[in-house]
């Protein structure tokens, strides 16, 4: 763990060397995030609700998903950019070192510009919560924290799966975006608003529904069963196939040379 934080600090120093660049990228990220926010706001000026969910309920969901995604972009950038490790042949070097391989990949890169998105998603979360009438109790606080936490976990799992894809081929990498960016875009809205087939897919195959739908129902007081409150815990199970896939892929790995 110490190694990881040291490498984070190194990357941060590295990025701050190009100060103007960092500031401009930071600003442009703020703008990008704002456009996501703007799209939802604009749609809600024409519509009152989406399948019973109001603006601030959707924003709550949106901010939780964006938080998890941005968290991984900052702290697990190495996994997101795993194809570069493979293409450059740098992955071979990592294999030679006597440390956990996933930890090393995590250490290989980070993107502090995306901290802007983390901050913004927390701001949107606070705005949303302030506008919602929530009867607070300890369980609800736990649910909210679990949602945030599971959001980070699910994207970590998806990034890891997408990285495993690189062991098989580095062609057509755009397909990864379907699951990362596409998934994020979709999960901005509570999964329940989509048609049945999608809800099942995103419950059992990629468990977004346990991040942004079932616990949300409990949090908003629409369901009272305690199972809904703790459903985000199921997302942790998703890590198992992700890690297994990664190691299976690694067994097949043959270096590209250089």
């Amino acid at each position: 763990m110490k190694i990881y934080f040291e490498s984070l600090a190194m990357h941060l120093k590295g990025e701050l060397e190009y100060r103007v660049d960092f500031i401009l990228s930071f600003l442009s990220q703020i703008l990008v995030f704002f456009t996501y926010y703007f799209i939802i706001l604009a749609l809600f000026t024409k519509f009152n609700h989406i399948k019973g969910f109001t603006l601030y309920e959707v924003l709550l969901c949106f901010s939780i998903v964006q938080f998890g995604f941005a968290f991984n972009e900052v702290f697990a950038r190495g996994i997101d950019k795993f194809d570069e490790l493979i293409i450059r042949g740098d992955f071979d070097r990592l294999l030679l070192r006597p440390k956990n391989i996933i930890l090393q990949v995590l250490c290989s890169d980070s993107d502090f510009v995306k901290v802007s998105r983390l901050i913004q998603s927390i701001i949107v979360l606070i705005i949303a919560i302030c506008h919602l009438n929530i009867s607070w109790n300890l369980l609800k606080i736990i649910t909210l924290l679990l949602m945030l936490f599971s959001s980070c976990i699910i994207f970590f799992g998806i990034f890891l799966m997408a990285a495993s894809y690189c062991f098989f081929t580095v062609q057509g990498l755009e397909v990864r975006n379907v699951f990362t960016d596409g998934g994020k875009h979709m999960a901005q809205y509570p999964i329940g608003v989509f048609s049945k087939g999608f809800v099942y897919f995103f419950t059992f195959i990629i468990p977004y529904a346990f991040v942004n739908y079932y616990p949300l129902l409990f949090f908003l007081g629409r369901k009272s069963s305690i199972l809904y409150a703790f459903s985000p815990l199921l997302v942790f199970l998703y890590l198992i196939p992700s890690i297994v896939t990664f190691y299976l892929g690694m067994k097949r790995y043959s270096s590209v040379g250089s």
Partner: protein
Amino acid sequence: MKAYITYFKLKFISSLQYRSAAWAGIATQFFFGFVYVMVYVAFYESGGKNLPMELSQIITYLWLNQSLLALVNQFSKDQELFKIIRDGGVSYELARPKNLYFMWYFKILGQRLANVTLRFFPLIIITTILPYPFHLGGPASLLHFLSFLLSLILGTLLVVALSVFYPIITLITMNEKGIVNLLMTIASVLSGVSIPIPFFPKFLQIISSFLPFQYISDLPFRLYVGNISLTDGVFGMCIQFIWIVIFIILGNIIMRINIKKIVVQGG
């Protein structure tokens, strides 16, 4: 002129080689399109007030957008151009007795056309045969279709004229991120790619009508679905034409000023 057409052809043919990337692109665009469509379906089923477009219109708009994304999107960067600026290869380009602006213009045009040629046909077919209400609908009328084609051609010339600015800016800043990404984001939102212009708040619609971005793809797509009347369409095409002329003249001027103080990186 012949030289520029050769540039165009070269880029077009070489870009046609990237077929596996194209399949990945098709899959990605199809999924993204589907997500957007489902969001709007969910919204429309929940009911709204004074909706500026019908559901079938907006779905067709979204599919056209995804099918032709390679042609009209704001985020594609011609990596080759940025590379020669970074590594100094631009000096070879300058040595050629041709106008650098138009060389770049035709290269970008060639690449965009090649990318869309590889992608749009399968997407149009798949999305047309999708079940109701998710499918790509037909044009509002024959005249709407013809004006769609004409304004799409003008929109393409406009988006290329806009895209040439990015390498020109990079000549000054030596960095293709920062300011270029900032501009691309603004252009992208105001072009209606993420959300069609009629869904914008009123004040932004007014601002946007004075800017060039909505004339790239929003105008042709809305003509296709019949959300804009033909007379407004003709008016829009005049504006497209004016913006193309302004951009090309402006681009040439900025290019000429910058070339005088260009610093070639390495050699």
